[in-house]
């Protein structure tokens, strides 16, 4: 499903954020990516949907070799991957409904289906009543939930979430985790970077720990392993 071989990433400023990463993730897995701030978790994740390109090494996602993928084809890769961004990345001029609908508009879904699907996922994340509001009118947690809704609206094969509970209160965090579990049960692979010790230790899944751009631990059913 996702495979990385000797992936190395050096940013233009000289920082090495991935220093030879080797990882295999199978279809349907649920993977936590943990590690201290600045360890390279986001970089690791961003390379999977080509927001960042590795300096060297091979990445294959869904059978697509990202090194060989032409820029023109990148949108089609991204449509197979739902991403919850650490900084939400909502379109400021679009309201909540339009933001979520955007992911379906790019695949030219019919307006009827779009209406139905968008309202369903907004209901799931508990924001149906705020569909007409703009991102600036929402709290951080609410924006995060819009980002989650957008990432799942077209039922992607892979879901990548960068600290999806970072801005949520404990109760909403658990609601979101239940949602992720449900999505995962339907067969979607989930890769989630998180600092939430309680969640990792309670809902057990595979844990990949990254430090200094290296995978230092890869353990199915592992603990969070850091003091939070």
């Amino acid at each position: 499903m996702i495979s990385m071989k000797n992936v190395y990433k050096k940013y233009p400023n000289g920082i090495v954020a991935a220093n030879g990463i080797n990882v295999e993730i199978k279809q349907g897995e649920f993977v936590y990516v943990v590690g201290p701030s600045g360890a390279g978790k986001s970089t690791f994740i961003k390379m999977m949907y080509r927001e960042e390109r590795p300096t060297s090494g091979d990445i294959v996602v869904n059978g697509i070799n990202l090194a060989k993928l032409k820029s023109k084809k990148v949108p089609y890769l991204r449509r197979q991957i739902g991403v919850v961004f650490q900084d939400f990345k909502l379109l400021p001029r679009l309201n909540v409904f339009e933001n979520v609908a955007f992911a379906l508009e790019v695949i030219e879904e019919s307006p009827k289906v779009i209406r139905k699907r968008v309202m369903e996922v907004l209901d799931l994340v508990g924001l149906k009543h705020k569909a007409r509001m703009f991102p600036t009118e929402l709290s951080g947690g609410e924006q995060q939930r819009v980002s989650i809704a957008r990432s799942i609206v077209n039922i992607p094969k892979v879901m990548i979430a960068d600290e999806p509970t970072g801005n949520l209160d404990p109760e909403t965090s658990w609601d979101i985790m239940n949602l992720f579990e449900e999505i995962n049960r339907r067969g979607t692979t989930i890769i989630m970077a998180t600092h939430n010790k309680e969640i990792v230790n309670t809902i057990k899944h595979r844990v990949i720990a990254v430090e200094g751009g290296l995978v230092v631990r890869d353990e199915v059913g592992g603990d969070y392993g850091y003091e939070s």
Partner: protein
Amino acid sequence: MKARTLGRHFRESFKSLGRNSWMTFASASAVTVTLLLVGVFVMIMMNLNKVADDLEKDVEIKVLLELTADDAAAAQLEKEIKEVDGVATVVYSTKEAELEDLIKDFGATMGLSDQNNPLRAAYYVKAENPQETEKVAQRINRLKNTYSVEYGEGKIEKLFSFLNVARNIGLGLILALLFTAMFLISNTIRITIVARRREIEIMKLVGATNWFVRIPFVLEGMWIGILGAIMPITLVTLLYYNLYEMVQPYLKGELFNLLPLTPFLYQVNGLILMMGIFIGVWGSFMSVRKFLRV
């Protein structure tokens, strides 16, 4: 692309115009100013050109025949003139006709009459290219049985060089104006788009293709171009209509005239509209281009 996606792009472009009303206004104003300048300029240039053409068309060579030339020799000369390089038309005028013209112009006071006619028969020759008149005249002058060749020497050379300079300056100014306009407008549009750089990035990250991002921007540029063309079209129409009505009566019977309202206003306004659209579309297209590499 499905039709409904195109519909979506149109809706988005309108929405964006409204939600960025201040930028829409700024860009459309930039378009308005330039198109107005260009419109007025084209109006002046095209009329100047028309006047020049009219004046040029009037330039002709008068070939006087030797008195000794009989009808056969005259016919021979006509044949030869027609064969000269660059000759368009040749009209014969007998010495009686010449006299009539003279009497018409100056009255019968000089005691000239058909019985006492010192004038010569003449050929009136027009050059295919009026600017070549001098050369053609010289060629004709070499033929047998020509007494003299007149074409307003000196005067017309001055006219031609004046018209040529005027045309070139005009063309240069229009081109310079166009480039300034494009620069100005693509800059204005770029400011709008730089402000939306983040948006373009986000769109691409959630799976939009380049065209999906680009088309609404390009359409928006088109609307801005059209909005910017409304004022110039109105003003140029009013201006030229009034000018024409005012000046036209004085030019009746003159050698030159202004361009008539009907095809001309459509042409100028069509040009203004096309240029507005082109500038808007081109400006958006170029500005959005470099932000698509996400």
